[in-house]
């Protein structure tokens, strides 16, 4: 057996893109398909340097449409495959992601969000939430982990592959340009050291034996003829997704038990929210913070439990209400006032959140 890319556990100081490449290696990924776009590029840079040493593969495609569909092909052939992108690249990949939803192709897509709409900035945003959760013509039958640190980028990239292959839905690691480009300390590890078993992969096409002689052929279909036929297929997909949802939703509560004011934030903004809550508490203000880690499926029951006790909610995000839509959908019927702290395409600090809360 080949040497494991990471022996044991070690402390490192890396950019998030490098972390993703190491996590994919540790998760026994066979092949990456990718196309250059900032701020994701270094995922490919590190992968192409590391992969040949561990007998892993890479293909640079002609665009993100192709990167998405070649990733589908890699997974259909039975290999653990992923791609990484951002912004307009994420837009182009949505077409392939709908195929992954429909045909239950367990691929992984890492998204390092950049500013939008359009080409906008290569720096940072949280403006790819709606697209990553619900992009394309479909029902958003995906798993989306919104990470807030380099440690989480490592942990959840490994987890994304395992959850995708366990449940057969496409999984997304939703990072951002800050996490992609900054360096931070974290522990990288051989998953076996933590008792994490890497889920086995298997082929959907190209199976052994002669079809029609030794076995039935695998005819994978994504085109249907009647409304009723399609409706049955989608109902089944939704039922499987909803059955899975309670098993995989993740969230965090910070001082929400007795909080009057609850800040709701995801991704890297959780760090500003956590720090703001600490400062506000020190100043005698009963603040708390709820953080959804999975944006799809959304921790609906968990946020509702928090919201019921609060006197005021604040949705803080580096977008114009994309998280808020998920929140209001989840807490429909609750009457607690909801304030917005939107900074589309721009970072949010703890200091400004403290000031905002005190000014309410």
């Amino acid at each position: 057996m080949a040497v494991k890319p990471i022996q044991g556990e070690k402390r490192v100081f890396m950019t998030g893109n490098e972390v993703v490449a190491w996590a994919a290696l540790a998760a026994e990924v066979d092949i990456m398909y990718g196309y250059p776009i900032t701020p994701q590029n270094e995922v490919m840079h590190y992968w192409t340097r590391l992969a040949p040493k561990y007998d892993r593969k890479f293909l640079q495609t002609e665009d993100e449409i192709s990167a998405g569909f070649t990733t589908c092909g890699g997974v259909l052939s039975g290999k653990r495959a992923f791609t990484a992108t951002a912004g307009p690249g994420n837009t182009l990949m949505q077409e392939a992601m709908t195929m992954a939803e429909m045909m239950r192709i367990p691929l992984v897509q890492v998204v390092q969000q950049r500013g939008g709409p359009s080409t906008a900035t290569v720096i940072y945003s949280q403006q790819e939430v709606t697209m990553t959760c619900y992009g394309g013509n479909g029902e958003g039958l995906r798993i989306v982990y919104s990470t807030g640190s380099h440690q989480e980028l490592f942990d959840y990239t490994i987890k994304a592959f395992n959850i995708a292959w366990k449940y057969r839905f496409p999984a997304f690691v939703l990072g951002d340009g800050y996490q992609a480009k900054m360096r931070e300390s974290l522990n990288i590890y051989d998953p076996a050291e933590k008792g994490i078993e890497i889920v086995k992969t298997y082929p959907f096409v190209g199976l052994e034996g002669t079809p029609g002689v030794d076995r039935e052929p695998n005819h994978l279909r994504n085109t249907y003829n009647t409304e009723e036929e399609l409706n049955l297929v989608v109902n089944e997909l939704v039922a499987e997704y909803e059955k899975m949802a309670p098993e995989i939703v993740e969230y965090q509560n910070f001082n929400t038990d007795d909080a009057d004011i609850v800040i709701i934030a995801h991704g890297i903004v959780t760090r500003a929210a956590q720090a703001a809550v600490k400062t506000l508490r020190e100043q005698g203000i009963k603040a708390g913070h709820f953080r959804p880690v999975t944006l799809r499926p959304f921790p609906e029951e968990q946020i509702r439990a928090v919201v019921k006790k609060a006197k005021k909610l604040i949705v803080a995000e580096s977008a114009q209400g994309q998280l808020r839509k998920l929140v209001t959908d989840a807490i429909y019927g609750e009457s607690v006032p909801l304030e917005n702290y939107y900074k589309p395409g721009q970072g949010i600090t703890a200091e400004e959140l403290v000031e905002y809360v005190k000014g309410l």
Partner: protein
Amino acid sequence: MSIIPNMPKPWRKETKPHKFCPGCGHGLVLKALGEAIDELNIQDKIVFGCDIGCSLLSWDFFNVDTVQTHHGRTTPVMTGVKRARPDRICIAYMGDGGGYAIGSQHLVNAATRNEKITVILANNCNYGMTGGQMAPTTLPGMKTETSPYGRDIEETGYPTQGPEMVAAITQERAYVARGTVANVRQLKNYIKRALQTQMDNSGFSFVEALSGCPTNWSTNAKDTWAFIEETMPQYFKVGELKTPVPKEGISK
């Protein structure tokens, strides 16, 4: 006494008669492909991807593992399979719209990268499934639903010369040909050489097949064949454009 036609081994009886329109060329292209698979004895190694458009109806045509993709995206899906599983023989099956319009960037780049896959493209001069619109391959002056007064080359250019383009951008070890459903034996040999090119890990392989669409051409049997045999070859020259495989040993 009845004559039972000799069908290729992968022919899936349960899904016959096939779902293409009467007179459609797809059945003949696929029969040629089936015979090529038989002669090379590779049924157990095939991964077949079909595009969206009429070609999607081939999804359950054969006893081979098959995947329906999206319109234009069959080349990357098969590229993805082949890169991950080089021991499989990957066939991307599409129409002229899927290959030369919406998926042209994939065809060009797969050809340039010398992907070890086989693309088989049925050229019937129009978009069949969507109701007969103008395609990249629509002939000058030809009437379609979106060129009701005839294709105006000043407005929309000349028909795409697919194999000529692919031959120009591929490496020496690639295989490129244009066959026709009017000569199934020749088409079978072209497809066979294309598959052999992939099996030899030699290079990209591409076969365009001139095909008929009587439904959208609004032609009877006689006029359909006249169009395929006489009109189309005036623009689309039948023959091999690039041959890496030694011709010895393969019957013409």
